[in-house]
């Protein structure tokens, strides 16, 4: 490839990595402030109960206890992402709806005292009938968990495009299957923690978050404080994957304790609390019906998907829709009906996940393979045939401006030697392919855009100020790299101020895949404006036409005359002299249809652009034990154009772990509303020895809107790796696999069912 860029597209060492390899990078739990107190939370021992009375008087009398808070100290405001989903008080008022729900908080001089104080709080509960299975919860007569949701249906998303029933009637072949995947734990390696400090009417917060601006807004609502008095500060975040997008009950409890005690307060959750009381992954059951023509063209799709939403709304409407969207963004559906139901149960709160929708996505792709087999088609061929291309619209009317599904499929297949590998499979081996496309950003009103400031300092170095947030993927480094490219100065000349609501401007945050496409664009525009200012001063000072000037190696250079140049800092100083320091703002708002609404109007442009991806997995299956292994994996992801090639690969490789290997084992297990495997001994996450050989393939579609052509850095792999593995397992075994994850017991069950049922 010809190198148009100096630093974009290189394997640059991430700017945040020095602090991390030396142990100097601070995470929330590492912070220590003067007079800081330790917080602990009293949690509900019931899945569903009325709170009759809370007596904190004994706890308050314990020496060393500085504050106790309950809902009486909160302001009766409920949290929900949308006006119509505000149902979560974050600290229980008169009812608890899941085991582990926050009931009271204590701040004390040390951990022992705080723990002792929890034992002294007397809560009188009246247990209520509870319901744990979403299908049960939807039945007439099931215990009603919130008055406002009849049949416990929290959200119903209905999408209808074309003439679905007619298309099924005319289809050459119709298949209907149901797939189920239980919930999972995000298992970010950093357990949740909050530090809150309140002084002079201002609340400062350090908390693992994926978007400080949305977090501050939520807390200002919950605390009834003006937004400018709630300051969410930048802090390193030990992984996110969807779990840190939203405000968490711990944020409210810790803030209330800091306000009440007048001291900084730190809450650190245990691993078990992190799994039980922060967000979890939705359990999903998807019934999928597909009609095709003789040539494999998909003519009709119908979906009924039930999401176990746990006790509260969370990102409800979004979570109920995303699995469908990342699928319709990949394939052409002329006629489609989608009914997604998010159902309230007496289980912990749920959120979005990097690989949200596994049963739906894996199920769709496995069913496509079953259809391909009946039609005598190659799984690759049927995917290419139905894949969306540039210029086409998705079923719900989003235009694809770059990429398309075919190239990632072809490149993944080429890397994996798809045809040869398939032909050469031995007994017990299988190969499969999974595809999705992912929106880069989605409608969040005026919060969908990002703004950046840049100032040039008197030594010719730059400071950029952006709301971009880094939860581990390298967004900070990405912002600096973009600034370096535009300003022609090395990354070490650039200081970053980011993710701090006091200093930075609005940004959608590190979810919805907007960081590089939206935030990166704002950084680029701000730096371009600064560059324009520098060059116009330089043109005057050097007496040279501005069109022929450029910035390179800290120098203003002529594009045509190598002798014509001047150090950039001279120009910057000149600008100071003239009272016009180099400072600029840049903003980017993606081209989204803001009439679009998740439930009421799910049609129109969803996002500025879409990334496409295809994963190929090879598995081996032991038919005796049901044990599956994944020895080989290819992930092809269309990131538009990589800003940092190594960082994009890293996202893809991590995605193979979280979806492609997780599908063999990861699941949360429950009994009567109790999470049975909240710790890392019982909930086993993949280790180095479990990983396949991974070949990441970066696909470049050079997006016309993205900064330097970039889209997002790896989410398609997170969304399709699961599918690739279940398809490979299906290929190896030749029987439907409807229950995920593919643990040995489930595999053996599927084999036995096929033996007795004769299903192929």
């Amino acid at each position: 490839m010809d190198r148009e860029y100096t630093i974009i597209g290189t394997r640059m060492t991430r700017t945040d990595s020095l602090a991390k390899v030396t142990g100097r990078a601070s995470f929330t739990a590492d912070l220590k402030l003067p007079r800081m107190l330790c917080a602990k939370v009293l949690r509900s021992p019931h899945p569903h109960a009325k709170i009759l009375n809370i007596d904190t008087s004994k706890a308050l009398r314990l020496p060393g206890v500085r504050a106790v808070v309950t809902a009486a100290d909160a302001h009766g405001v409920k949290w929900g992402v949308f006006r119509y989903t505000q149902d979560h008080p974050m600290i229980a008022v008169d009812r608890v709806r899941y085991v582990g729900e926050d009931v009271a908080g204590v701040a004390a001089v040390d951990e022992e005292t705080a723990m002792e104080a929890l034992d002294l709080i007397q809560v009188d509960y009246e247990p209520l009938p509870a319901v744990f299975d979403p299908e049960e919860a939807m039945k007439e007569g099931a215990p009603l968990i919130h008055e406002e949701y009849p049949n416990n249906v929290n959200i119903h998303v209905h999408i209808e495009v074309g003439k679905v029933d007619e298309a099924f009637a005319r289809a050459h072949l119709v298949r209907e299957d149901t797939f189920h995947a239980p919930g999972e734990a995000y298992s970010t390696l950093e357990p949740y923690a909050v530090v809150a400090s309140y002084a002079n009417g201002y609340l400062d917060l350090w908390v693992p978050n994926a978007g400080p601006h949305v977090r501050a807004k939520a807390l200002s609502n919950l605390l009834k404080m003006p937004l400018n008095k709630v300051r969410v500060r930048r802090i390193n975040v030990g992984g996110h994957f969807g779990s840190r997008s939203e405000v968490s009950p711990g944020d409210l409890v810790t803030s209330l304790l800091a306000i009440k005690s007048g001291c900084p307060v730190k809450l650190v959750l245990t691993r078990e609390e992190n799994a039980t009381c922060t967000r979890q992954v939705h359990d999903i059951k998807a019934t999928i019906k597909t009609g095709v023509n003789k040539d494999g063209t998909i003519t009709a799709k119908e979906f009924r998907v039930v999401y176990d939403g746990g006790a509260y709304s969370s990102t409800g409407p979004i979570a109920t829709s995303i699995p469908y969207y990342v699928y319709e963004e990949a394939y052409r559906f002329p006629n489609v009906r989608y009914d997604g139901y998010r159902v309230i149960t007496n289980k912990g709160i749920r959120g979005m996940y990097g690989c949200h929708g596994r049963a739906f996505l894996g199920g769709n792709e496995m069913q496509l393979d079953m259809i391909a087999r009946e039609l005598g088609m190659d799984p690759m061929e049927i995917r290419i045939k139905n894949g969306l291309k540039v210029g086409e619209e998705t079923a719900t009317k989003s235009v694809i401006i770059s990429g398309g599904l075919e190239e990632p499929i072809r490149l993944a297949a080429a890397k994996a030697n798809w045809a040869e590998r398939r032909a050469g499979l031995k007994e017990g081996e299988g190969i499969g392919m999974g595809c999705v496309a992912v929106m880069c950003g989605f409608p969040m009103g005026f919060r969908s855009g990002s703004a950046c400031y840049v100032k040039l300092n008197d030594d010719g170095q730059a400071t950029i100020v952006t709301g971009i947030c880094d939860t581990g993927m390298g967004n900070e480094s990405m912002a600096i790299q973009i600034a370096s490219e535009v300003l022609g100065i090395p990354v070490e000349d650039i200081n970053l101020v980011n993710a701090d609501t006091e200093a930075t401007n609005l940004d959608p945050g590190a979810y919805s895949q907007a960081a590089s496409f939206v935030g990166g664009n704002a950084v680029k525009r701000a730096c371009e404006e600064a560059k324009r200012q520098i060059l116009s001063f330089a043109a005057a000072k050097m007496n040279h036409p501005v069109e022929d000037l450029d910035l390179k190696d800290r120098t203003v250079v002529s594009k045509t005359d190598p002798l014509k140049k001047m150090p950039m800092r001279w120009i910057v100083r000149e600008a100071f002299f003239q009272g016009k320091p180099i400072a600029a703002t840049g903003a980017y708002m993606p081209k989204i249809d803001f009439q679009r609404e998740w439930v009421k109007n799910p049609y129109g442009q969803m996002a500025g652009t879409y990334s496409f991806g295809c994963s190929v997995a090879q598995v081996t299956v032991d038919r005796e034990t049901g044990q599956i292994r994944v020895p080989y994996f290819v992930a092809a992801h269309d990131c538009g154009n990589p800003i940092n090639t190594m960082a994009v690969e890293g996202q893809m490789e991590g995605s193979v772990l979280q979806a492609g290997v997780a599908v063999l084992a990861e699941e949360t297990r429950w009994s009567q509303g109790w999470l049975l495997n909240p710790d890392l001994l019982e909930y086993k996450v993949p280790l180095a020895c479990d990983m396949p050989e991974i070949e990441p393939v970066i696909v470049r579609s050079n997006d016309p809107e993205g900064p330097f052509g970039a889209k997002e850095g790896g989410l398609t792999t997170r969304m399709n790796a699961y599918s690739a593995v279940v398809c490979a397992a299906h290929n190896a075994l030749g029987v439907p696999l409807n229950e995920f994850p593919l643990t040995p017991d489930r595999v053996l069950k599927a084999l036995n069912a096929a033996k007795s049922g004769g299903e192929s």
Partner: protein
Amino acid sequence: MERFKVNFQVNGEPVELDVRPSETLLETLRDRLELTGAKEGCGLGACGSCTVLLDGLPTRSCIVLTAEVDGSEVTTIEGLAEGEKLDPVQESFMEKGAVQCGFCTPGMILTARSLLDRNPRPTREDIIRSISSNVCRCTGYKKIVEAVEAVSSTETPET
């Protein structure tokens, strides 16, 4: 409450402390010595994010009592670099992109350092086996393995 007097070395410096019998080495390092490079990912020996070197061997400091380390030598991530000069493992983790969120990184680096000290030319399988004691939720381990391999091929093995 009963206390124990403990003497040990941390990153080459002698430390003398009175500790509670139940105090873990991780608590001592993080809360008393302000060495927060070792992280608490699980608190029960499952994840390796609290790994330090105890007399050169990777050890989960969340399940070791400080009272037990009397007379030992503890190395934490803060003690690995010599001033500004990074250990080759630290450098390699940076260069190879083996660091994402960084929460597992101190434990991973110390585990790898100890492996290379004991076995300067490990095979890929040796590396995978060794770091399989530690969880990383972000990287998929590929670049961590590559980072360790790169060090082993540049460091001259002792003869």
